[in-house]
Structure formats: C-alpha cells, structure tokens
C-alpha cells in the first residue's frame, strides 16, 4: 500500500507558479502591466464617485440661478503665500454701471479658501442615510463664498457636481448593459453551441439578423419610441435594455464557437466517462476555460456602451433631463457660440475619453493576462 506523498510547501518561485490557481496567475500577470494597473485604479476611483456622488459634489446639481450663468472655471491654487492652503478666486457680484444689473463673475483679488469635509447641502448617503458631509467646500456655501470647480452652465448650475452625478449614470449604464449582454450572450450562445440542433439554427439566424441591423439608426428609433412621460428611472432601464439587445450577439457567437469546439475535447469526454452530470461538465469543466476571456471581452465592450449612451443622450434621445449623464451635459455644448463663450462645457467629453481609455487599457491588460499562450 503506497503511502500518500508528503505535502511540500512551495519554496522556490517555480514551485509557487506550479501550484497557483488560474486566478492567481492571471492577477500576477496583470500586475506586470503597469499601465493597465494604473487604469484599474482610475476606474476604481470613478466607481467610488459612482457610489458616493453627493459626497464628492459641492453644490446641488439641480440648483439653478440664472444670475450665476457661465461662471468660468475657478482655478484651484494649492499654496496661499508660503503655506499649504488651497483657495480659489472668489465669485463676486458687480453692478454693471450701464444696465444697473448685478453681474457675477470671478474676482481675482479676493480669495475663497477651500475646506475639506465641510457641511453642505443635505442628501441621502446611498439613498438611505441622511447626511450633510461633503468632500470639498467653502466655509459659507450658501452665502458669499462659492466653489465652482468647473464653472457653471447657462442656467448657473455647478458643472463639477453635475459631472459627478453624470458619471454615476453613465458608468452604471455601461456596466449594467454589458452585464445583460454577457448573460444573454453566454446563455444563448451556450445553448446554441452545446445542444446544437434546432435551437442552434434558430439562435444562429437570430444572431445574423440582429447583426445585420444598422445599430445607431435602430437605437435611435427604439429610444424615440420611448414615451415622453416615463420617469428618468424607467428611461434609464429602457436604455440599458436597448443597448444590450444588440450587443449580446458578438459574445453569443464567440461563446457558441467555444462550446462547439469544447464539445469535441478529450477532457470533456473524460468527464462524461467519469459520470459527471451535464451541468457539472458545463459549469466546472467547460466554462472556466473561457471565463477569463469573457471577462476581458466584456471589459472591452463597456467603452462602446458608454460612447453609445453618450451619443444618444447628446442627440436628445437617450437619458433625458432632468436626469444627468455625460451625454446630457454635452448637449449644452451643441451650440458652437455657446462653446466659444464657455469652453469648460466640453470638460465632460474629456472625462468620457478618460474613462473609455481606462476601460480599454484594463481590458487589454486582462486579455493578455488571461491568455495562457501569450508571453
């Protein structure tokens, strides 16, 4: 009777490599891509904002004040003289000598100190807990000391706070839409690939049909079909569904292909011969081989969703005001004369580019890390 070989703790790096689980290996390889790691941190920060938008905002994003329209970006200075003390040029009102109206603008001679963790407008943390605390602010936000980190728009609304709230909507839509797509794609692709037969033919035709549709016009038509009186939440949900309805096809095709190929593999045959149930074979044997690839592909699909939602909302047919998304914010920049007057209205576009860039870099890093055959 042979004794069980003693378990040896992995000592050398080579040993550790050979006993590491697949996820560990992926993480180790991902870590080496410095750019991807940095982008992942950026994304984490953005999603942190998604969770606590009001905390990061300085003003109520809906608060309008026509007098405060088009206030430019208040440049943040870190040092007050020699001391470390962040401040911005104050917003002050001046009476126009000709029209006798109060005009508000940036007064470079006066300083408004910027404080951290101040009391500001009330909100509900995570929608439940009432709170007043904000990350940034001034000593007297309702009074004479105002902070407009990214300026205001034509209705005097603080762009920084609106951007923060817009980030929440846009980043969430992308994530949820891709999740729906993945679920649909894996399910339908899996059925099609694993069971074959009639189901396969039907699903294949469906995929071909959907892929032959011109995406943007169809999206436009579908979003135009949404009733005007739906609540922002309903619109949000509908947009997510619409975006994922066409997006699942590519993943579905890939999953189908994988299942078709895997069905013939020897290790699947071995599992069947060992008596494993069909569900067990699919879940424990087949899916793990391409799970990391799916994750990488999904991460790379999110940017397309974000850009689509932004474009649709920009045209007025996606997320509608008073809901805020990056596209809604950019709608303010549609008019070139307005943009020439207030170029800071284009800043949400930079955030779009940044987030898409981050997603692409992370997705590329994940894809390279998950591919067992790449270097």
């Amino acid at each position, binding site marked *: 009777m042979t004794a069980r070989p003693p378990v040896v703790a992995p000592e050398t790096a080579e040993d550790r490599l050979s006993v590491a689980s697949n996820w560990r290996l992926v993480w180790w390889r991902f870590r080496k891509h410095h750019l991807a790691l940095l982008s992942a941190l950026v994304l984490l920060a953005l999603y942190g904002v998604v969770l606590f938008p009001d905390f990061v905002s300085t003003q109520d994003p809906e608060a309008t004040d026509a007098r405060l329209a088009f206030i430019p970006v208040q440049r943040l200075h870190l040092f007050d003289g020699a001391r470390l003390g962040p401040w911005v040029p104050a917003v002050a009102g001046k009476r126009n000598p000709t029209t006798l109206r109060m005009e508000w603008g940036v007064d470079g001679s006066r300083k408004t100190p910027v404080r951290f963790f101040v009391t500001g407008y009330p909100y509900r943390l995570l929608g439940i807990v009432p709170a007043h605390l904000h990350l940034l602010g001034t000593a007297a936000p309702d009074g004479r000391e105002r902070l407009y980190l990214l300026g205001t728009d034509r209705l005097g609304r603080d762009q920084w706070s609106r951007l923060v709230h817009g980030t929440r909507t846009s980043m969430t839509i992308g994530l949820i839409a891709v999740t729906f797509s993945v679920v649909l794609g894996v399910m339908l692709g899996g059925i099609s690939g694993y069971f074959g037969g009639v189901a396969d033919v039907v699903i294949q035709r469906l995929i071909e049909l959907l892929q*032959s549709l011109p995406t943007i016009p169809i999206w*436009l038509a579908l979003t135009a079909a949404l009733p005007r009186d739906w609540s922002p939440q309903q619109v949000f949900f509908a947009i997510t569904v619409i975006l994922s309805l066409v997006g699942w096809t590519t993943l579905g095709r890939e999953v189908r292909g994988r299942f078709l190929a895997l069905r013939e593999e020897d290790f699947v045959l071995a599992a069947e011969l060992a008596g494993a149930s069909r569900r067990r074979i699919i879940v424990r044997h087949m899916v793990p081989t391409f799970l990391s690839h799916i994750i990488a592909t999904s991460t790379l699909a999110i940017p397309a969703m974000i850009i689509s939602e932004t474009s649709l909302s*920009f*045209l007025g047919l996606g997320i509608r005001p008073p809901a805020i998304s990056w596209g809604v914010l950019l709608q303010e920049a549609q008019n070139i004369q307005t943009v020439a007057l207030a*170029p800071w209205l284009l800043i949400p576009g930079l955030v*779009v580019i940044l987030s898409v860039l981050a997603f692409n870099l992370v997705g590329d890093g994940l894809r390279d890390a998950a591919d067992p055959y790449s270097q």
Partner: protein
Amino acid sequence: MTRYVLKRLALLPVLLFLFSVTVFAIVQAPPGDFLTTYVATLASSGSSISAEQIEALRREYGLDQPIWVQYIRWMQNLLTGNLGLSLEYQRPNAELIGERLVLTVVLALFAFAITWIVAIPAGIYSAMHPRSALDYLLTILNYIGVATPNFMLALVLMWGAFAYFGLSVTGLFSPDYVEAPWSAARVVDLLKHVWLPAVVLGVAGTARLTRVLRANLLDELNKPYVTTARAKGLPEWRLVLRYPARLALNPLVSTIGWYLPLLFSGSLIVATVMNLPNIGPLLLRALINQDMYLAGSILLIYCFLTILGTLISDILLAWLDPRIRLDEG
C-alpha cells in the same frame, strides 16, 4: 464561390422583408402618431386646429386604418418605387432623400478610404519597428482615437476653427453651391469640404485598424514562411509587403463587413453636429415627429446599406484567401 455569392443574394429580399416588418413596428411603437405631434407643435406656437380638420387629415393620410393595412400600403408603394409622402414636409420622400443619400454614401466612402490609406502604412511601420519612438507615438494616438466619440472630436474641431480662426466648418458645400445643380465645380467644392467630416468620422476606425494590423503583423512576422522568404534573398520591404502583410490584412478584410455599415449609420451623429446634408439628421427629425413613411424608408435604406457592406466584405474575403475560395469548391 459563385454558389456562395448567389446564396447570399437570394437571402437579400427575405432579410429586407423581415427588416421592413421590424422597422415598421418600431416606427409605429410610440403612442400617438404624426398628427398628435403636429397638433402639439401647433398648440405650442399658439395656433390650433379643429377636431374635424384633424379627422379629415387623419383619413387623408390613412392614419385611421389599422396598422397592418398601413403596412401593406407602405410595402405596395415601396415595391413600385414610391417611397411615400413626408407628412411634415409635404413632399415625396424620394425627393427629400435623393441627394442626401448620395452624399451619405460619398461621406462614408471617403471616411473608409482615409481610414485604410492612413492605417495600413501606420500599422506596417509600427509592426516593423516595434517599440521605436514613432511606434509609441502612434500607439498613444491610437488609444486616444479609439476612446474619443466622434461627435466630441467634431465639437472640438468646430470650436477650435470658430474660436481661433473665425471659421464655420459646417455643411458640405459653400453657400453658393448648396442648392445649385451638379457640375464639375460643385464636385470640387464638395471635395474641399468633405475631408474634415470624413476624418472625424474615420478617426476611431483608423485607430482600431492600425492597432489590429500591428498586432496581426507582429504575429505573422514570427512565422516560418517569413524566414524562408528572407533566406531566399528578398529585400526586406518587398518581403514584408508580399507575404506577412498580405496575410495580416486578410482578417482585416472581414472587418469591412461591419465597418462600412458602421460608417453609414455612424455618419448620422457627425452629420447632426456638423449640419451636413445627410439622411441621418433627416431620420432624426422624422423619428421625433413620427413622420412614419419617411422614417421607415430611411431605416430600410440603412438596413440595405448594412447588408450590402457585409456582402461586399464576404466576397472580398473569399476572393483574397484561396483557402476559403477553394474549400467551398
């Protein structure tokens, strides 16, 4: 291969039929119809219309018929080449669409040409000199290009031109030529204006194509047949272009299948921003106003262009790669 092409062509009417039903359903989906929006617009501008007039208009446009009757009427008209009447403009749709369709296709083709003319040399250079300074620069540009939504690029360029040069870069023609009949001079004018929207439209695609070509070519350059060719004594440039580049380009040809349709439909957003005479903005208005025959016709045209793009790419791929061509046999 002819059998393959014929099979695809035979499927075309079936697909279009299915699409027409889908399209019609989507266009009719919003509650109310053209007249509801029309009345609302009238009301907001201060005028009104009596109930009898509304009913009369409804009967005249056939909006009181059940949906399937409206659909059949639409299909009958389509099959005889009649695209219907625009309810808003009160003109035949064919007239409204006409020139805009040509310009849409021209814009898309220009963007397509620019994409490939830029991406191929850039991709080949990057793969042959990986990690060089120019390669890094191109990679950065590529990443940013893919991440920038094209309407954003359009906005920035338009703003830049306006704020710093006082230029207005909208439209596809100078004011003199907008309504003028076609002539050689008009074509030249078009060429002078179309390149900027084409660049904006094609930026993302160019960036993506360069990256993919670079990756594919890097893979191919390591393959044994490259060593053989080099061992034969071929000069490096000729070697790269004739062998690995050719093979690296093959999978890219299949991307034409969805890239060309994407250019057709993507021009919608750029056209709206830059105020181009494109069928896109026309569709937008038609959808908002529920001008259903116009919207339906344009959507169907988009569908047709999409299928055409896919077909072209499949034919090209079969022609370029003997492995596909001869296997079908």
